């Protein structure tokens, strides 16, 4: 086995036991990125020098017999909307092309405390607004399984880097599916934690009542390990919840006896392609074989989730992105001797891409006098109805299961010209953000060589159950172990 193929847990154990050195392993990852990223474009800013320096430091500490952290030496790719001290953080936007954060996000501090090694900042949809990683100012990321296809988004760079073995772990953020969608399209495990489990301090805001930072990984145990490092209370995020973190490892067995699975009919509705349904159903039968029971039922308000989600997300975006005026940081036009309001408007038109402008303007509209009740307030009330339905459903069932995405990965350029068609791709992922419930995407099959993901959603702070289901699928199918043919 080549070093870049190792899972995180094997890297940490290998380094601690001195079977491998952090430097050799990091060099193998760097070589891999150099060989492949020209065609995949998963990274915006690689951080090879810093990574090598850190690897050598870890090797020295191991030699001296010091105890190294729980992620010692592990190469992790960081989505480029998470602030990294001294490392350019662009949000894949021209607006922040040269922005160097003066501080680390809380999740980055926690990774460093456990001796993880940042290997680079990954490509994404601009300001995390998209489902394909095509709206990046730095060009689209390509799907390692088929370079003509999208990798999903918005955390497409993180997922593509992982499955191409250019990183061992990755962080993404999920506002309406941005971890789960690329996890599904690249065939990795991606988890959106319960709202409030992971600190958002240092995450560049898009829609803050919806989003969470979360782990992407190539095995369930790695996903559990990363979540256990980044999760937990942070006083710097006022929406961080102060409860003890679960043990994410103890439930990792494939004994599913007594597990009650609810299958919302709406997750298998007419907008979902038959090929996707077929693979998800075969995974459900795997879970059934391990002792789970399932029942179909209906969540009628789901029909309105997508519209409500986009109204809320755009409204929050219009407010959050008002800060980009090109004054304290961000893009500023060269000739700025005109009136301030014209300069701001020009900085923003040049700094932002079309999708970002679209969402800011639609959000501005939805919040404006005369339309606030009709759009924003109405959407928030529908959010309440959806929450109530999920609460009721999760009294009857332990977990709700369906596909992550309604269709397999599609061609780059195929949908980007038609915003509404693209929004429809998020129909199955947004409910977990509206409700704040945790959700995971797990590889569950291939249509030809294109990956299909299964989504599981459960009650707040029950991530351990999602990881158990992921583990059961990983242990009883081979989808998580398959890799694209990249020579």
């Amino acid at each position, binding site marked *: 086995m080549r070093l870049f193929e190792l899972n995180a847990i094997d890297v940490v154990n290998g380094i601690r036991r001195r079977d491998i050195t952090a430097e050799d392993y990091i060099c193998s990852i760097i070589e891999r990125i150099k060989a492949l990223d020209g065609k995949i474009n998963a990274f915006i800013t690689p951080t090879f020098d810093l990574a090598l320096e850190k690897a050598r430091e870890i090797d020295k500490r191991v030699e001296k017999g010091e105890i190294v952290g729980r992620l010692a030496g592990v190469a992790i790719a960081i989505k480029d909307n998470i602030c990294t001290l001294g490392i350019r953080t662009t949000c894949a936007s021209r607006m922040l092309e040269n922005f160097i954060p003066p501080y680390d996000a809380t999740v980055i501090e926690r990774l460093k405390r456990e001796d993880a090694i940042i290997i680079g900042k990954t490509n994404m949809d601009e300001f995390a607004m998209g489902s394909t990683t095509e709206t990046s100012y730095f060009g689209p990321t390509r799907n390692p399984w088929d370079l003509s296809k999208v990798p999903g988004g918005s955390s497409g760079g993180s997922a593509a880097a992982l499955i191409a073995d250019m990183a061992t772990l990755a962080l993404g953020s999920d506002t309406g599916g941005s971890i789960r969608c690329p996890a599904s399209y690249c065939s990795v495990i991606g988890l959106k934690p319960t709202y409030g489990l992971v600190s958002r301090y240092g995450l560049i805001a898009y829609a803050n009542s919806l989003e969470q930072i979360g782990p992407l990984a190539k095995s369930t145990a790695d996903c559990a390990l990363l979540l256990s490092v980044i999760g937990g209370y942070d*006083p710097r995020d006022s929406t961080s919840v102060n409860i003890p973190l679960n043990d994410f490892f103890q439930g990792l067995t494939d004994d599913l006896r007594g597990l009650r699975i609810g299958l919302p009919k709406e997750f298998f509705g007419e907008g979902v392609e038959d090929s996707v349904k077929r693979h998800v159903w075969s995974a459900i039968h795997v879970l059934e074989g391990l002792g789970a029971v399932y029942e179909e039922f209906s969540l009628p308000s789901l029909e309105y989730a997508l519209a409500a989600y986009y109204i809320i997300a755009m409204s929050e975006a219009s407010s959050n992105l008002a800060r980009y005026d090109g004054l304290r940081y961000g893009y500023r036009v060269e000739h700025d001797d005109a009136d301030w309001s014209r300069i701001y408007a020009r900085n923003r*038109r040049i700094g932002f891409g079309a999708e970002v402008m679209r969402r800011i*303007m639609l959000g501005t509209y939805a919040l404006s006098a005369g339309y606030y009740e009709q759009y924003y307030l109405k959407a928030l009330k529908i959010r309440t109805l959806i929450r109530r339905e999920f609460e009721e459903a999760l009294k009857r069932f332990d977990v709700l299961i369906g596909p992550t995405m309604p269709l397999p990965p599609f061609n780059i350029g195929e949908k980007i010209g038609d915003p509404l068609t693209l929004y429809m791709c998020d129909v199955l992922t947004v409910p977990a953000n509206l409700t704040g419930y945790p959700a995971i995407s797990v590889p569950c099959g291939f249509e030809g060589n294109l990956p299909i993901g299964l989504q599981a959603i459960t009650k707040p702070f029950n991530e351990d159950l999602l990881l158990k289901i992921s583990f059961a699928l990983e242990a009883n199918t081979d989808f998580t172990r398959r890799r694209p043919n990249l020579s």
Partner: protein
Amino acid sequence: MSAGKKHVSKSEVEHIAWLAHIELTEEEKELFTEQFNRILDFFRKIDEVDTNNVPPTYHVLELVNVYRKDEVGEPLPKEEVLKNAPRREDDFFKSPKIV
């Protein structure tokens, strides 16, 4: 393309762009007007739902008024604060002309 109801006119899109401080070209105004009408048409699907007596969910947590202690901490050094400024003069951010 769906026919859809007309929700916003080109002049309304101009107004929204002005509110949002985004300069638009004539072609963009045309394109966004057409796209906004189709997206808003889709959004109006929520009109079907009876939300009488349903309270809004602004936030999924039960948290209200989370305070921290009002203690003086270590501020960022001035150079760090100004490091990302596109224009500066001495120790100040330099803004465009206000009046």
